[in-house]
């Protein structure tokens, strides 16, 4: 049995709100692939950007609590977080607890006050949904389980910035063949290619989407997103595959805003990679929440005779 066959699942706040479709499609793909998700009980916010900016050690505690529940109360060895922000914060907490005595001290103090066992670095391995499928199933097994194909669909894979940065919190990456790369991430490309998609050469796959300052400086965010959308179209993509709820929402919302505010219309669609894999695995677009997306993925899938 693969260690990723049954993992603790940490959806995080975004997947209960704007990224509901990512949550649904992640669960549907897991079911289709025989990978079991055991949701972390009574999970809390990972600390996101807001808490981290006010006090990074409180963010470390918040993330550590999620890992503590998974390890100490649910006896899991692996926590899977599909959201780049959650994934990043859990990895950062893991790193800080392994390398910084003052972080350990603060986490221990708050954990005692909160009345739960203190998380110790190394108790769980945090992985992204991409690792879960890539390492838990792999391309060959994925191909074996396909009921359809993404043939004819040109995809620009967009990873955003938090999946690979900063490099030091992802020690398992950049370990040679088979491992993920922080310079040129490829796990999403590999999985979608296995499902029949044609990946286009897209040089902005880890470029900033401006998501972090979308409220403080919407115009810059819109222009950054527009540039990503236009580059994807220039690369020949029909769709941008995403694996981060913040990026996904940003791309969709600013696509609309770019047309309204800047008069710049783009046609490329956005779909979570789990929605694309789900379609290839024979799951209906409705179960994958494709109709919940702002950009019209249903028409594209019909036009390409994929769904």
């Amino acid at each position, binding site marked *: 049995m693969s260690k990723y066959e049954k993992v603790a699942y940490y959806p995080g706040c975004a997947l209960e709100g704007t990224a509901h479709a990512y949550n649904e499609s992640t669960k549907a793909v897991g079911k289709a692939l025989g990978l079991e998700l055991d949701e972390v009980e009574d999970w809390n916010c990972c600390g996101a950007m807001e808490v981290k900016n006010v006090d990074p050690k409180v963010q470390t505690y918040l993330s550590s609590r999620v890992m503590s529940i998974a390890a100490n109360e649910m006896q899991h060895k692996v926590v899977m977080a599909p959201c780049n922000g959650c994934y990043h914060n859990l990895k950062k907490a893991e790193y800080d607890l392994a390398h910084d005595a003052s972080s350990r001290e603060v986490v221990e103090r708050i954990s005692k006050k909160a009345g739960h066992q203190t998380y110790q670095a190394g108790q769980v391995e945090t992985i992204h949904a991409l690792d879960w499928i890539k390492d838990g199933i792999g391309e060959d097994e994925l191909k074996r389980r396909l009921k359809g194909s993404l043939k004819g669909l040109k995809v620009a894979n967009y990873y955003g*910035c938090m999946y690979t940065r900063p490099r030091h919190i992802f020690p398992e990456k950049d370990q040679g063949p088979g491992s993920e790369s922080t310079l040129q991430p490829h796990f999403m490309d590999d999985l979608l290619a296995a499902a029949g998609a044609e990946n286009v050469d897209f040089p*902005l796959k880890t470029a900033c989407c401006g998501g*972090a300052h979308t409220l403080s400086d919407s115009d810059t965010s819109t222009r950054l997103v527009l540039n990503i959308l236009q580059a994807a179209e220039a690369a020949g993509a029909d769709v941008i595959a995403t694996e981060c709820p913040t990026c996904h929402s940003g791309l969709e919302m600013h696509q609309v805003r770019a047309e309204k505010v800047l008069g710049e219309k783009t046609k490329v669609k956005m779909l979570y990679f789990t929605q694309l894999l789900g379609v290839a695995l024979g799951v209906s677009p409705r179960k994958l929440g494709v109709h919940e997306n702002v950009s019209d993925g249903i028409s594209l899938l019909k036009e390409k005779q994929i769904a």
Partner: protein
Amino acid sequence: MRQPLLERAEAALESWVEARGQVPTRETVEGFRLLALHRQGARGVPSFNACRETCREIAYHYNLLGERQDERQELMMRMLVQHLELFVRGKLEIEGLGEFCCASRPLRQKSGSEEKTDA
């Protein structure tokens, strides 16, 4: 066309370095002043690394266009440079507000994180 695009990218990073009261470096990293400027600009500002791969892609496309002219590659290099300019402009605008990106530093850094953790 690749040289003016590379110079535009360097100029964007020079603005960032100068805005932080430093003299833009003339050194190179892996043969590119652009990469040296990025390294200089990211010192003490981890979130500036969010444009590291964009800079490396610009260098890569510069090299590609040295091999042969290709309209599509040139368009991609132009869009990469445009992205870098937008990113730097955004960073300059929000610098006064503090860092909001992935590898952020705390807003009230001077007060010390120990004191702030009231738990």
